[in-house]
């Protein structure tokens, strides 16, 4: 009960940030939310199920371009386009996931990487539909969420939806099965788990969440560009999950905050910025190998004693 109360308070505080914050900070916070959403999806796959996908953000791209096409070319309403785009990412995740999941461990990683590159190259080259490398311009924001302050609340809402989905999955029987699959797939199967089905399902769910993040991102930027969904972004998503704390509820949120926020704080270091950022990432993996979420939890326990 107390934890629920604290969470409500935190959400209320986050919701009221636009009242006090400068546009620059708000802009960063929007990006944090938009990076956190696909990361939550990847956390279900990587953190809870042990599936390291190196093509995750390509599925955000599928959602983003589906929404762009539906909104701009087909003049579909924002919310129905968003719903269809999320569904498209989920279906693509189920189909491509079913193929990737025929492979294991590092072979799985390589195949997801390959699919990520293929999808990127479709976005980059299918000029008639995606407008190619120049990007797909003119993507709207939903009515009432145009200004930065209101869009921040939309992005926050999206992140909260993703977080709630993750929370529901993790505490369900399905979540228990995912964690069992990460620990010992052969044993889980001997106990009656249809491993292929469960892993495909979590791949689809993770991809659908990526799609949600993708739609909101291009809606925020007002343009869908292939560079937003390339290999580097997929690697970033893996980093966000691992640094935040793979397999913990808050991990992807904390990871996104650090990953987007820290380089901004380091702007004082000018051209040394990325060097310092890299060094900090190394320090985190050295001293908090289970991520920031774990570091905070340990600190909290020590305080309580």
């Amino acid at each position, binding site marked *: 009960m107390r934890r629920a109360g604290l969470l409500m308070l935190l959400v209320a505080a986050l919701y009221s940030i636009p009242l006090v914050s400068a546009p620059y900070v708000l802009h960063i916070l929007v990006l944090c939310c938009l990076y956190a959403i696909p990361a939550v999806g990847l956390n279900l796959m990587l953190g809870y199920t042990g599936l390291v996908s190196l093509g995750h953000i390509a599925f955000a791209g599928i959602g983003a371009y589906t929404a762009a096409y539906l909104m701009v070319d087909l003049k579909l309403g924002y919310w129905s386009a968003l719903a269809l785009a999320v569904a498209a990412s989920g279906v693509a995740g189920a189909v491509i996931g079913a193929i990737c999941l025929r492979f294991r461990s590092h072979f799985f990683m390589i195949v997801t990487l390959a699919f990520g590159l293929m999808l990127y190259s479709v976005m980059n080259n299918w000029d008639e539909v995606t407008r190619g490398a120049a990007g797909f311009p003119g993507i709207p924001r939903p009515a009432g969420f145009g200004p930065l302050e209101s869009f921040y609340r939309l992005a926050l809402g999206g992140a909260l939806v993703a977080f709630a989905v993750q929370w529901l999955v993790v505490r369900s029987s399905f979540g228990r099965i995912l964690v069992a699959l990460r*620990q010992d797939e052969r044993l889980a*199967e001997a*106990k009656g788990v249809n491993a292929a089905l469960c892993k495909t399902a979590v791949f689809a769910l993770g991809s659908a969440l990526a799609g949600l993040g993708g739609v909101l991102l291009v809606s925020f930027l007002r343009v869908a560009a292939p560079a937003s969904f390339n290999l580097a972004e997929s690697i970033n998503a893996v980093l966000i999950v691992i640094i935040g704390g793979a397999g913990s509820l808050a991990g992807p949120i904390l990871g996104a905050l650090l990953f987007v926020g820290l380089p901004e704080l380091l702007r004082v270091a000018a051209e040394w910025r990325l060097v310092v950022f890299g060094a900090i990432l190394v320090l985190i993996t050295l001293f908090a190998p289970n991520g920031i979420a774990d570091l905070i939890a340990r600190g909290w326990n020590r305080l309580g004693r």
Partner: protein
Amino acid sequence: MSHLAVQGLEKRYGGIAALDGCSFDIPGPGIYGFIGPNGAGKTTLFDIVAGATAPDRGEISLDGRRLTGFSPHRLARLGIARSFQECRVFGEYSCIENLLFSSIALGTRPDPAEAERLLKLVGLEAYATEPAASLSFGQRRLLEIVGTFLQRPRVLLLDEPAAGVNPALLEILATFILRMHEDRPSVCLVIEHNMEFIMGLAREVIVMHQGTVLERGDPQAIQTSPRVIEAYLG
């Protein structure tokens, strides 16, 4: 009724035949020992019955229903449970969570009271909420085997349950298996190298050699059979 029939199983790995026309018939519930020299095909046989490996040829049926080629999870749903030679438990889950996992996997109602009762029978009640990874090897083995009984199997495959377990725990294990078998009889097949352990447990022993069944009979007769002695020494 549980009638397990294995007919003409063959499995080759490269040029080597792990199983070479293995056939036997288990007419009903009971504990059956499987012994034989290393490489006789015992574990391959279990892997095939549990669906982890597909045979090149041959059939398995339970009460006349053909089970060959079914996946492990489907066989688990049909009442086939197994333990692993290398001992597998979910290390991050507590003992109780490990025991309740089969009901989560099968979507049945979990029975924590029953799980705790069985945990007490093997003397692990003090570790109920400890992660399984913190147990000793022998304790993990006990936990694994308790878990297979909680699946309420019709066919139970135990692959070297006594291997690596110290004598004190071994006695607990044997008593537990006999007691559980008395409560809920199943077709219980046990691979074992520990002769003393298996002779005290099994009503009948099946000797495997070079991928086939060499001999089968009651434990005393098997121990004196010249063919068995030759297979082990020759």
